[in-house]
């Protein structure tokens, strides 16, 4: 934001508030984008509980936990990037953005590794779906679980890719412009944290269902 507010605002402070509010409204609509997935998952969890337990026990808990920890840490780096930027530490802020992006890339790398494994096992829903560990009458439910699994993690990964582009964009601009406006960095941060929040709920929904049997 330049020193002079846009013509429709009284002050820069008011403009800054409007930017934040707009971002929160956008994230609210993003949450509703995930709503059909939540509803679909909840229905399956209720109506096909046994099959969902079997499907969930075949996800990789170790990789899922490591990925969750990395995403939580990336959120810390993002929050620190905004804090450093406010305190005037442009270089430190840039380093934190790089750390955020690297953790995001590592998350996607591990997730891709997992997907490859799931795919090779034949767990991708559709014509070639194969799941011999479950009794015949439960296979439909397990396939439904994997629809939720691939749709949920896939939609999340698309958001993460967009987030990565935004974070790297903010870092890249720093070298070319004098500085990124703080409100833009805040919005990038809000989006990144939103991706983190979505994963926080995907993790128990897909990895932790009836682990203890």
């Amino acid at each position, binding site marked *: 934001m330049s020193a002079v507010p846009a013509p429709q605002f009284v002050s820069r402070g008011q403009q800054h*508030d409007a930017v*934040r*509010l707009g971002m*929160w*409204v956008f*994230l*609210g*609509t993003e*949450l*509703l984008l995930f*709503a059909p997935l*939540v*509803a679909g998952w*909840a*229905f399956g969890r*209720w*109506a*096909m509980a*046994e*099959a969902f337990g079997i499907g969930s026990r075949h996800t990789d*808990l170790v990789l899922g*936990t490591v990925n*969750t*920890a990395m995403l*939580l*840490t990336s*959120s*810390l780096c*993002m*929050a*620190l990037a905004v*804090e450093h930027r406010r305190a005037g530490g442009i270089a430190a802020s840039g380093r934190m953005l790089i750390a955020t992006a690297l953790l995001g890339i590592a998350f996607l790398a591990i997730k891709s590794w997992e997907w490859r494994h799931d795919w090779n096992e034949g767990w991708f829903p559709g014509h070639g779906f194969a799941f011999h560990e479950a009794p*015949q*009458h*439960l*296979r*439909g*439910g397990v396939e*439904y679980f994997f629809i939720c699994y691939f749709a949920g993690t896939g939609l999340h990964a698309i958001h993460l890719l967009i987030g990565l582009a935004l974070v790297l964009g903010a870092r890249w601009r720093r070298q070319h412009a004098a500085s990124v406006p703080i409100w833009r960095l*805040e919005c990038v*941060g*809000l989006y990144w*944290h*939103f991706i*983190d*929040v979505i994963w*926080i*709920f995907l*993790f*128990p929904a897909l990895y*932790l*269902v*009836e*682990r*203890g*049997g």
Partner: protein
Amino acid sequence: MTRLALVHAALLALLAGTVALSSLPLGLISAVGSFVIAAIKAALVMWFFMELRRGRALNRLVLAVAVLTLGLLLLAGSDYLTRAWTAAGWESPATADRPTS
């Protein structure tokens, strides 16, 4: 910045807690507990990392409305639970995993 680091430590502790809880054969407690912990983690992220704690109340209101709307949509989805199942054309009745109740 110390505050942010503390929040991060709490998030990782909650993650360890939820993984440990899920490995115990507690049935419903484990199922509900993992989402209670997820809600606490999400609240920490939003309150501290997303700065709801010092922003305008209007931002918190937007979040509340979004969550409420999500809840209403899920209520509408409960319609499915009150109906008998009919196998779709592509699934044989034997493979459909029906609700036991």
